[in-house]
């Protein structure tokens, strides 16, 4: 099992040697995996809204929440589109269903706490990664490792204790997802004893490098969008 350095992982570094493709051959043998796809509602996500009820979150916390929301939009849209297209095989089909549900719950919670301050959902073009098992899995590994690193990078910057408690409760779920996707892809789920965080600029640079975000929403459209059908 190749040990990929977690904190340095980007899309380009994954599956250069076709390891994921090989690993996928073994996935179908794991019958009964995720016996029941169950996404419960967690009361904790509701606590995200607590600071809003108690008064506005700090401007700095709002910026962090919007950064997190952007990543959750990206993840949620990726899994939702994959599930909708239905091109991912029987055993792996549980992955977009389960992860889509969780990431959409994260989006909803962050939108709720931000209210009108929430950034709008960008438009995405996943460039075929939602239709191909290998591409889907390598992208999912990268997204989940990145999500965990991004939340960790913000942990010490959050002002509100209630927001921090909610954010860390999401952070560890992203890490669970990362381990799961790595397991399915044939990578060691925990390659190091310590996970490093990533600062916002680095996360944004990696996201930009995927070119999955094709347009930020604008209030005034200056030209025709390029990727409309």
């Amino acid at each position, binding site marked *: 099992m190749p040990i990929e350095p977690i904190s340095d992982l980007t899309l380009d570094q994954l599956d250069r040697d076709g390891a994921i493709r090989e690993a996928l051959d073994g996935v179908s043998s794991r019958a009964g995996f995720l016996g029941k796809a169950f996404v419960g509602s*967690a009361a904790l996500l509701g606590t995200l809204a607590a600071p809003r009820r108690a008064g506005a979150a700090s401007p700095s916390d709002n910026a962090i929440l919007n950064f997190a929301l952007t990543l959750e939009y990206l993840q949620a849209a990726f899994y939702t589109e994959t599930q909708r297209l239905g091109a991912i095989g029987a055993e792996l089909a549980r992955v977009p269903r389960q992860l889509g549900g969780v990431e959409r719950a994260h989006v909803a919670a962050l939108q709720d706490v931000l209210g009108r301050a929430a950034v709008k959902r960008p438009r995405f073009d996943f460039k075929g990664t939602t239709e191909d098992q290998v591409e889907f899995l390598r992208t999912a590994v990268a997204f989940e490792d990145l999500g965990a690193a991004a939340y960790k990078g913000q942990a010490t910057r959050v002002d509100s204790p209630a927001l921090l408690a909610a954010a860390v409760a999401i952070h560890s779920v992203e*890490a669970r997802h990362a*381990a799961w996707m790595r*397991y399915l892809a044939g990578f060691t789920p925990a390659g190091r004893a310590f996970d490093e965080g990533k600062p916002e600029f680095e996360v944004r640079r990696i996201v930009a490098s995927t070119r999955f975000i094709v347009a930020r929403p604008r209030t005034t459209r200056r030209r025709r969008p390029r990727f409309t059908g």
Partner: protein
Amino acid sequence: MANDLRIDVFDPAAPCEPELYESRANVLKRAFAAGGAIVAGGVLVAGLPRSAASAPSPAQDAEILNLVLLLEHMEADFFAEASVRAKLTGELLEFAEIVRGQERAHVAFLRDALGRKARKRPSFDFGEATQNPTAFSAAAVALQDLMVTAYNGQAANLTKGALEAAAKIVSVEARHAGWIRAITEKNPAPEPTDSPRTAAQVTAAVNKTRFLKSD
């Protein structure tokens, strides 16, 4: 402080932690029954001297880090013993061997961070949980889930410096939890959040295992 953590004989009236959701409760019960069936009497950790809910401070950091150090010791010893005794093969053996090393690194890291304030090395008796693959798997899932909720419960109680250190560990524990759940065909992330446990809930969960022999 380490020496504020008292050692009590088992108190049957001690409150159990409220279970966060049924599936996890069942896993915990099964896993902990495996250990508890063998160990007749052990010691229990009495919990933090205060509720660890006051403003972050270096003194409170030490209390919290000593609590998670106890858990890391438990895990390190559990995986060390299981990897030689539980007759593990294949994915389970690979998991146990990799995780053993990482939990050892966490123990060393926390002991180093705590310096002279670090608690004494506890000892454990894992009973059946390290004797066969089935009992091992159930206990490993329960322990890893517990670690995640324990760290998450303390995040807001730590100073920024201690939080930064703990954050590097908690996601590795979450990876372990997702990994062992994937191997054993359990949902690796059954909830949208890993709800935190308070220090009292964590110590109650530790006590319920009866794994702790001396502290």
